[in-house]
C-alpha cells in the first residue's frame, strides 16, 4: 500500500548529542502509528521534525508524495495536539477550535457548523462559550483534540496527549481517543512513553531507543515477538537467559542454558549461535506439565501483585521470574517449586553482548 506519510533517514544532532540517527518509518493513509520509547529516545524530536518546528540535518519527510521538509509548519496542512494542550487562554473554546479554520479562510457559516460538529465529536457540545481555565484537564484535552481534528489535516500529530491526565482518566480516554481517531480516518502519529497506551491506541508501533528505530511492527507482534533485548525489556519481558543453540527438534530450537536444555520457537537461528532466551513471566505456570520446558528450583522471593504473585526461583545459579495466579500459589520462600512453560512462548533474541542478557534480567530485578 502506498505510504501516505514517509519519513526517510532522518538525522538530527545537537553538537555531540545525536537525537535522531537514520530514522525511517511509514504510515499508510488513515493509519495510527505510535512512536514509543523511554524519555530521551528522540520521539518528540521526531514529531517536531515532522511538524516542521525542527529541521533535520539529513533525510526528508514526504506526505502524499510531496517532499515537505523545507515547508514551514503553517503550510504543512497538519495539526498537533500538545502535551499541555496549548489552548489559547484568551480565546473561548469555540474560538480555539475555530482558529485553524480561520487560518484557512473558511467562510464563517461553515466555520460555525464545523466547530459545533467537532465539539460534539469529543462530547463537549455545550461548552463552546467557556474559557480554557474554566475546564477540567480532561475537557481541555478534548478541546485540543477537537481543534486539531476540525481542520481535517492530512497528518495529525499527538505529543503524549494523555500524559497530563490522571491514571483513571487516561485509561478511559485511550479507547475513546482511538475510536474518535479511527472514525476520523486521518493518518496519525502519536508519541507516547506508555506501552499500554501504544498497544491500545495504535495500528502500528515504532519503538525508538537512543535516536534509532529498535523495532517497527503491529502491537501484537511487538508484544509477542520483540526482536531485541531492548524491545523485550520495554514490553515487560523479565526473563533473559544466555544460551547456545545446539539443535533443532520437532520444529523447535534446542538451546543449552543454565537451566539445562530449553525448547524455543525457531526464529531462523542456526546451530552454534549464541542467543538470548526470553520468557514472559505470565507464560510460566506452576507444575511440571504446562509445557516442554520445566525448571525446578528454590523460591527465593515472593511478592504480591494483586491478581498474581511474582515468584523468583533459583536453580543452577540462574534465576527465573514467574507470575503465578494467587489462588494457585501457596509457595513460601525456601520451598522447592517446579514450573513449566511451552516452547511456543519461548523466544530467541540475538545475543547482543556477552552478559547483556544477564544485565537485562538483573536490571529487571532491581527495578522490582
Amino acid at each position, binding site marked *: 500500500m502506498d505510504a501516505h506519510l514517509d519519513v526517510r533517514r532522518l538525522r538530527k544532532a545537537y553538537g555531540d548529542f545525536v537525537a535522531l540517527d537514520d530514522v525511517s518509518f511509514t504510515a499508510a493513509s488513515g493509519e495510527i502509528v505510535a512512536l514509543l520509547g523511554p524519555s530521551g529516545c528522540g520521539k518528540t524530536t521526531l514529531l517536531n521534525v515532522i511538524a516542521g*518546528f525542527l529541521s533535520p540535518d539529513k533525510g526528508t519527510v514526504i506526505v502524499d508524495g510531496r517532499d515537505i521538509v523545507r515547508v*514551514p509548519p503553517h503550510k504543512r496542512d497538519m*495539526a*498537533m495536539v500538545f502535551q*499541555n494542550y*496549548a489552548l*489559547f*487562554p484568551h480565546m473561548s473554546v469555540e474560538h480555539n477550535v475555530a*482558529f485553524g479554520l480561520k487560518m484557512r479562510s473558511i467562510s464563517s457559516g461553515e466555520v460555525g457548523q464545523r466547530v459545533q460538529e467537532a465539539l460534539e465529536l469529543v462530547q463537549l457540545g455545550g461548552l463552546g462559550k467557556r474559557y480554557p481555565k474554566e475546564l477540567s484537564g480532561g475537557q481541555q484535552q478534548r478541546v485540543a483534540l477537537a481543534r486539531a481534528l476540525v481542520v481535517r489535516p492530512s497528518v495529525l*500529530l499527538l505529543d503524549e496527549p494523555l500524559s497530563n491526565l490522571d491514571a483513571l482518566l487516561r485509561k478511559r480516554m485511550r479507547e475513546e481517543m482511538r475510536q474518535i481517531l479511527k472514525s476520523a480516518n486521518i493518518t496519525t502519529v502519536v508519541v507516547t512513553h506508555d506501552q499500554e497506551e501504544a498497544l491500545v491506541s495504535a495500528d502500528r508501533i515504532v519503538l525508538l531507543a537512543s535516536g534509532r528505530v529498535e523495532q517497527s511492527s503491529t502491537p501484537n507482534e511487538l508484544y509477542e515477538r520483540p526482536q531485541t533485548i531492548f524491545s523485550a525489556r520495554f514490553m515487560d519481558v523479565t526473563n533473559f537467559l544466555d544460551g547456545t543453540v545446539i539443535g533443532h527438534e520437532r520444529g523447535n530450537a534446542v538451546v543449552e542454558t543454565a537451566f539445562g536444555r530449553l525448547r524455543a520457537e525457531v526464529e531462523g537461528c542456526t546451530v552454534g549461535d549464541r542467543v538470548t532466551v526470553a520468557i514472559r513471566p505470565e507464560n510460566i505456570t506452576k507444575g511440571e506439565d504446562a509445557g516442554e520446558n520445566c525448571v525446578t528450583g528454590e523460591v527465593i522471593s515472593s511478592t504480591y501483585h494483586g491478581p498474581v504473585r511474582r515468584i523468583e526461583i533459583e536453580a543452577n545459579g540462574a534465576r527465573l521470574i514467574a507470575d503465578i495466579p494467587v489462588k494457585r500459589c501457596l509457595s513460601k520462600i525456601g520451598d522447592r517449586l517446579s514450573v513449566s512453560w511451552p516452547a511456543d512462548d519461548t523466544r530467541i533474541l540475538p545475543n547482543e553482548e556477552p552478559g547483556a542478557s544477564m544485565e537485562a534480567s538483573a536490571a529487571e530485578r532491581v527495578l522490582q
Partner: protein
Amino acid sequence: MSTTVENGRLPAAGNSLLRLNAGLLLVPALLFYAALFVWPLVLSTWGSFAPAGQLSLETYAHFFGDEFYRSVLWRSMRISAITTLMTLIIGYPIAVYLSQNWRKGRSLVVFLVIAPMFVSAVVRSYGWIIILGPNGILSSLMNSIGIPMGHLLYSEAGVIIALTHVFLPFMVIALVGSLQQIDPSLARAAQILGANGVSVFLRVILPLTLPGISAGSVIVFCLAASGFVTPALVGGAAVPVMPYLVYKEGLLVLNWPFASAVALILLVATALVTAIYTFAVRDGASKRRVVR
C-alpha cells in the same frame, strides 16, 4: 498583589508570642512613615485647603480659573500620554528581542537599555540638551545634510524625546515580564494550525501581553507626569509642566498653599487617568490568565 507574601509566611503553627515580637519590627518603619511622611502630607494638604488659616477652595479655584494653569495640567497629561505611547511602540520590539534571546547577546542589550535607568535624570537630560541644543549634535547633523532645522531644545517635542529615553527601560521591563510568561507551545500550536508569523503575533502573542502593556503604561505615565528634572532642563520655562509649577511656586515664589494645591491636583489627575485606563483594560483581563 503578587508582592503580597504568601509562600514566605512564617510557619503558621508558630506561637503567637513569636509573631507578636516579629510584628513589632514593623514599628520603627511605621513610626517613621507616620511622622515624616503622612504628617507632612497632611499638613501640606491642609495648607492647600486653608491658605489663610480658614477652610476655602480659593487655591484650587485660582488654579482652575486661570487658563495658563489649566494649560499646564493639560500639557502634563498630554506629554505623559504621548511619552507612554512612544515607549510602548519603541520598546515592544526590544522586549520581544530580549524575551527570545535570553542567552545569546542579551547581556549587552540589557545593559545598554536598562543601565541608563540607574543614572540620574539630570545627567540624561544634560545629554539631551547637548544633543538637541542650538549647537547640538542633531542640529549640526541636520544642517550638514542640508535640512535646515531649528533646535528641539525648549520645545515639547524635545521634552517628549527626552522623557521617552528616560522611561523606556521601565516599559521594556514590564513587557519582558509579560512576554516571558507566555507558554511557548502556544505559538507552535498556532503555527501548526496554519498561522504565519504575523498572525501568530497579532492573534496570540499581543493579546497575551496586554497585562504587561497595561502595567508598563501605568508606570510610565505616572513617572512621566511626576518627572521634574527632564522637562525643567530640556523644556525650561517654555514647556511648563505641573512639577515645574510646584517647583516654581514652592521654591521660587514661596506660595506654599498654591504649590501644595498644584501637587495634589497632579496626584489626583494622574490617579484618575490611571484608574480609567486600568478599568478599561481589566475587563478582558480575567480571561487571559495563562492556563497551566
